[in-house]
């Protein structure tokens, strides 16, 4: 398979036709596009009228309405610009886990990344890619165009899961790395200390980025469905635990739920999307389902 095709599935490409990933927050783009601009009033697309309040710029008063209704109304316009999106892909060693008959989390996440990059590129949006484990391994700054897409696919091709996840330091560095407001797609299993994860996500959100968290885990990790005794050996740590998974299942699932709930709470707080992804599910279904649900929901409040 050509490099560009390894993670970009034609079936997914076909299913993405007609779908789009719109920014909910304003985007600080550099060309005119499909996303709302952070700057109002100078664009060409009328948005709405609103009653004048003291302090408004007098230039935007609609004098025609004043002539008919003797009241001041301000004309508001929306500027649409292109989107800057950075995809943060976890390439730590834990992402190498693969359940029986299923792709590894990394493969799944890479395909997810490739598909989203394709989608954004097709929308004329700028896409960047940043891979990380205990450090930032690769950073492709955001840019638009097919060349950029090929670059990203090449980076994904070269990426290998390795190293440990140091979320606490890394997420703060990522937040600082992305200076301009953008959409941040974080694709990770988030297998790190919950407090560090929460703090890191908070920091990213506080930087004004619109966060979409794709929490990718294998079905084994979501549900611990094993029946035989297992000797668990940690991929990123030195854990060796002989246990009967059936007896641990309830507590395990509860622990996953607790973690997931906490991450969801952070996302809710910052109006970020949280998508729990099970690698057992087909990628097109997961991706298309999410995009369809996202586009069907009303847009959030306009931000300045």
């Amino acid at each position, binding site marked *: 398979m050509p490099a560009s095709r390894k993670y970009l599935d034609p079936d997914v490409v076909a299913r993405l036709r007609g779908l789009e990933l719109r920014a909910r927050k304003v985007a600080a783009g550099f060309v005119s596009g499909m996303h709302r601009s952070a700057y109002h009033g100078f664009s060409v697309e009328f948005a709405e009228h609103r009653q004048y309040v003291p302090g408004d710029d007098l230039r935007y008063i609609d004098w025609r309405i004043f002539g008919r209704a003797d009241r001041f109304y301000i004309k508001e316009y929306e500027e649409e610009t292109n989107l800057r999106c950075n995809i943060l892909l976890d390439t730590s*060693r*834990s*992402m*190498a*886990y693969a359940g029986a008959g299923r792709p590894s*989390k990394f493969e799944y996440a890479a395909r997810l990344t490739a598909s989203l990059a394709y989608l954004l590129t097709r929308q004329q949006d700028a896409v960047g890619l940043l891979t990380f484990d205990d450090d930032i391994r690769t950073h492709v700054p955001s840019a638009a165009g097919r060349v950029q897409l090929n670059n990203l696919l090449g980076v994904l091709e070269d990426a290998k899961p390795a190293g440990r996840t140091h979320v606490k330091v890394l997420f703060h560095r990522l937040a600082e790395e992305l200076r301009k407001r953008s959409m941040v797609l974080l694709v990770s299993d988030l*297998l790190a*200390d*919950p407090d560090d994860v929460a703090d890191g996500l908070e920091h990213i959100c506080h930087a004004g980025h619109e966060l979409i968290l794709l*929490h990718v885990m*294998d*079905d084994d*990790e*979501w*549900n*611990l469905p094993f029946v*035989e*005794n*297992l*000797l*668990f*050996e*940690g*991929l*990123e*740590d030195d*854990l060796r*635990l*002989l*246990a*009967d998974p*059936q*007896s*641990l*299942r*309830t*507590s*395990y*699932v*509860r*622990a*996953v*739920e*607790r*973690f997931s*709930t906490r991450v*969801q709470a952070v996302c*809710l707080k910052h*109006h*970020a*999307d*949280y*998508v*729990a992804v*099970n690698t057992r*599910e087909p990628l097109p279904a*997961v991706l298309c389902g*999410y995009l369809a*649900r996202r586009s069907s*929901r009303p847009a959030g409040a306009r931000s300045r």
Partner: protein
Amino acid sequence: MSTSALLAIGFVNPLLLGGLGMVLLPILIHFLSRRRFRRIDWAATLFLRQAEEESRRRTRFEQWLLLALRCLAMALLALLFARPFVEPGIIATLLGGGATAERIILIDDSASLGYLDGGRRELDRLTLAADRLLGWLGQSGAARRVSIYLTSEPNQPWLRLDPRDAADLARARSRLASLPVSSLRAEPHRVLTTIAHAHPTPDGGDSATAAALAGDDATRDASPADTRHLYILSDFQRSDWLPSGGRTSAFAPLMELAGGLRVALISSAGSPRENVAVAGLRAGVPQAVVGMPVLLTVGVANHSARPSSALEVTVDLDGRSLPAIRLASLMPGERREAVCELTPSQAGYGLISATLTAGDGFPVDDARRLVIPVRPALNVLIVNGDPHPDPRRDEVHLLRHALAPPGPLGSGMQLRVVDAGELDAEPLDSFDAVVLCNVPAPSEAAADALERFVRHGGGLLIFLGERVGDFEGYNRVLYADGRGLLPVLLREIRRAPEGIGLLRAADHPATAMFPAGQDALSESVRFTAYYASEPPAAVQEARPPRPLAVLARFADAAGTPALVERPLGAGRVLLFTSTCDLDWSTWPRSLDGSYVVAMLELVRYVATRPPPRLVYEAGESLAISLVAGQHEPGVLVRAPWPAPESPVEVRARVDSGSAGALQVDGPRLTQLGRYDVQVRSRTGDAEAWPAVVNLPAPESDLLSASRVELAAALGPLPHEFISATDAFVDAGEQSRRELWRFLLLLGVAALLGEQALGWRFGLPRAAARSAAARQGVLGRILSWRSGRVVRGTR
């Protein structure tokens, strides 16, 4: 010790209980399964650590719970195959010891078990208990052999059976159902001795001694079992079972089996038993005479715990009833005697019975019987040694009037008076007594005839006097160096011109008519002459001891014997060492009339031929003495039941203690009522008499021994005390209940429970639901409104 357990558990296949080892199987599998595992590289160690930490205790609990259920299922499976059953604790107590234990049942069928409680004999209660016990033994297979003994047959087992054999069991039950109450006392010591020797424990007792005592090899088991279970079913009457008066404990023979013996005392006794009994019946004389009144004494005893009143005793003589004797109330434990007078009207044997109207539950002792020989008259030969035409000087004139007073009131005596010279020609067999009154020494032939007469049961009364003359002749002919008739050796005539009195020397029927407690037989009697005799002690030194009795002495310094008795053969000789007329004494003239009474009593006493024993208590053996040359050695005995027309002939044996005598021992008299005994003489004449058998008097005291008393009597023997009333009456034949259905259900429930719990413990949805629940309603609403939480398809 008593049974307290309500239920007990047993197993049909106890060997399969070894399957309980399967309980270890789940534990083994559990630990083996922990050694089989798959290695997996795991990324989400974060959650795994939390889960392991959080669920460590719960997991351990769940694991142990599941393990316990699996073990329980295995145990139930093993129990299922062992086929457990429950039965009343009484049964477990009775059936302990397993199939190798030997079972011995002793049933007390003594007369006291005929007590009617609610219209039902107590023996029925015991036979029912024995019946059920046999049923349980057969049903459980806990016995291969059972020996049943009766107290009425103490020398051998009454029945032996294998209760597992249905035909054997049915036969035993049939015999138990028709078991009659015997009329005997229980003799537990005797039957337990037999049991102890017939069923020795491997290490108990001296086997040689046991074999010798057991006698009957058939009763001995070839291979003694390890343990013996002895079930004693009885009312445990105190008088039979408890030691008293030097009698050892009834259980003493069992002590040598102590190592391998368990005793179960199964008591029939319920509430205290009320009983009033005729405790005694006796006549004032051993032999009656037609027309002469006889005093009869009836003893009545109250063995109840409360007073008895309105008691009446009816006395019958040969079927004719006397007016009833009414008794005032008898206090608990009191015994009272009533006296009545009856007069036989015909000769033979008078059959007397005394019947009490008590109305208690033990009627068998409400009557007693007595047989008394009745003579038409006492034939007395008076030999006059000093006849005289003047009655006042005749030797026997006063004696004749004393013995046969003229007038309508007879004395029951027919007298014949002959002179001393006529004695040789007088046939003596037709007389009951011969009285020699101041007779010179008889000829050798007359002395021999007199000795034969006495030895065959006749009585000889000798009065002395001047006519005796040379007393050496008396000593030679009649004393004969102690082999003759004279009880003592005559020495000399002692004179006491002022007269001396007569003193009682011993209690004796012949002197019983004089006032009791006085030394002098009569205050007004004085003797002026009498014969001194060799003291009996001196005689005994020279001769073989002879049973002499001095009944009266003269009140001189030496206490010279006045009246001496000597039994000889079947008869007796009385010697009065003074005269019977006024020659040497004033007795015939004494104002108190004691002469007449004394003469009558002395003659009646010597004229009374000791009859064969006519009254027995049940359990005693018939005892008859015969004369070898006079009687045939066979005796016919006819029992009252079951076939009076079929007499049993019993052979007599030579009595080693008495030359020329034959002794008949037996048969054992086991039935109450009248037996008929017939003896045939060598001449072909038959002599028959009745013998009556009464209930042994102690059997009327129905008080039972308490548990504590029995425990003390049993000493260290392990035992149980069980009430047949409580434990056996309500216990049904099908009292054993098998538990396999219940165990099967329990096992299925355990397996289903294990599966359900295993499924439940490994179910993640529960955790998901609980997480959703923890998230709460508010959390879910916020998620919906913001639309930011996108639930993946996990």
